[in-house]
């Protein structure tokens, strides 16, 4: 019988899971959510995929998953050469996650990118930069993968091709959500956090929202469900709760 360990990234970080797998010379598969998995052979990562992304790029993208269940399914070693030193992959993944977290709320504008070769994902984001929307919002709109655009965007910033807008017109990004009224509840992209505000944990936000809703603290509940959507874009439960909060608030106001 295969040995299986279940968990949630909300409680145990992917970095911890991978360090455990390496330390235990784990062989088999780690599955994260529905679309993501890693194959192991004696503690080395030999395969990784998330959607259509494979290899090291997939490992990097997996570090941006904030909330998902994971399963360690012990079994036969998974064929393939090691994708790299496990601790290097872990540290690189953590770095990407930290850089993405730093980049998401930034509002950028284009200074000069003529003649700069850009990959399609990066090109999509750069094209969307308008000095008012933040990076997260644009990346979600164009469907760019965070792990694929982090380093190119930082490089463009460092080289002066892009610049951070000091006083963005659209500073409170939650406004974007509210401006589009009730339809915003079903909008494909959640609102990103303003600068210096950490991306919240999904379950914490959901719990906070539910408690606030019970005691009719609509503003708190609304903010909490928006936070939940920020942590888990397009989440059905958070979306429904947000809609319910607004309906109840409007009823009370009327």
């Amino acid at each position, binding site marked *: 019988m295969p040995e299986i360990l279940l968990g949630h990234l909300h409680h145990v*970080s992917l*970095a*911890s899971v991978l*360090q455990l797998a390496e*330390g*235990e*010379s784990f062989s088999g598969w780690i599955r994260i959510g529905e679309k993501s998995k890693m194959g192991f052979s004696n503690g080395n990562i030999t395969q990784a995929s998330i959607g259509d992304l494979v290899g090291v790029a997939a490992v990097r993208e997996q570090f941006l998953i904030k909330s998902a269940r994971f399963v360690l399914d012990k079994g036969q070693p998974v064929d393939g050469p090691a994708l790299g*030193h496990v*601790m*290097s992959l*872990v*540290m*690189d993944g*953590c*770095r990407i*996650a*930290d*850089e993405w*977290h*730093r980049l998401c709320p930034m509002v950028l504008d284009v200074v000069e990118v003529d003649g700069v070769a850009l990959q399609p994902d990066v090109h999509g984001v750069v094209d969307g930069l308008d000095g008012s929307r933040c990076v997260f919002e644009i990346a979600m709109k164009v469907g760019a993968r965070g792990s694929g655009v982090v*380093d190119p965007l*930082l*490089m463009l*910033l*460092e080289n002066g091709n892009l610049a951070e807008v000091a006083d963005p017109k659209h500073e409170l990004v939650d406004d974007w959500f509210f401006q589009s009224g009730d339809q915003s509840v079903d909008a494909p992209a959640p609102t990103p956090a303003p600068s210096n505000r950490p991306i919240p944990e999904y379950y914490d936000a959901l719990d906070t929202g539910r408690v606030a809703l019970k005691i009719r603290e609509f503003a708190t509940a609304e903010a909490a469900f928006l936070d939940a959507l920020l942590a888990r874009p397009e989440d059905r439960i958070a979306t429904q709760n947000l809609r319910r909060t607004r309906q109840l608030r409007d009823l009370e106001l009327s």
Partner: protein
Amino acid sequence: MRMNPRKRTLTVKIVYYGPGLSGKTTNLQVLHGRFPADNKGALVQLDTESERTLFFDYFPLALGNLAGFKVKVDFFTVPGQSFYHATRRAVLDGVDGIVFVADSSPSREEANGVSHGDMVRNLDGSGRKLEDVPHIYQWNKRDVRGAIPVKVLERTLNPEQALSVEAVAKDAVGVFETQSLLIRAVFNHVRAQQGWVRKHA
């Protein structure tokens, strides 16, 4: 400390913590350079792609045998830049011993304090207290002009009066002393607190 009874191995995780440019990487480079080739793995170093600053260093070292177990020590540094929160938390995960490398330069007094606070918070976030983790302070860059007096460093960063070592890591001064004192403290801690090495031997 990770123990694998089947393979009879013990793995100890030592982390060098401290503000950016305090000398954490230099410590690891000096250590790596001095240990015999047969006992050590490669020094793994990662650069950040954007800023070209050293982001992370790591190397494993075989220390010998303890109570029938092969002992391996993994040395890590954390990235100093403030926004690498998740990375520092990941490196501290399961840490067995910490060297806090403080920069004695007068202009780095505040950075030392910020990094120290960050370390305490990160440990706290994983349910651990600094006083429960073997740790040692290294007062590095003692050769800089106007170095912060050791008394001040001790008062501000080390009120718990943990062990401390004065160092000039770039000249290899104090580097080995720091490392050996910490490893001794880690194993004393394991013996005193758990005693399971002997139990499993």
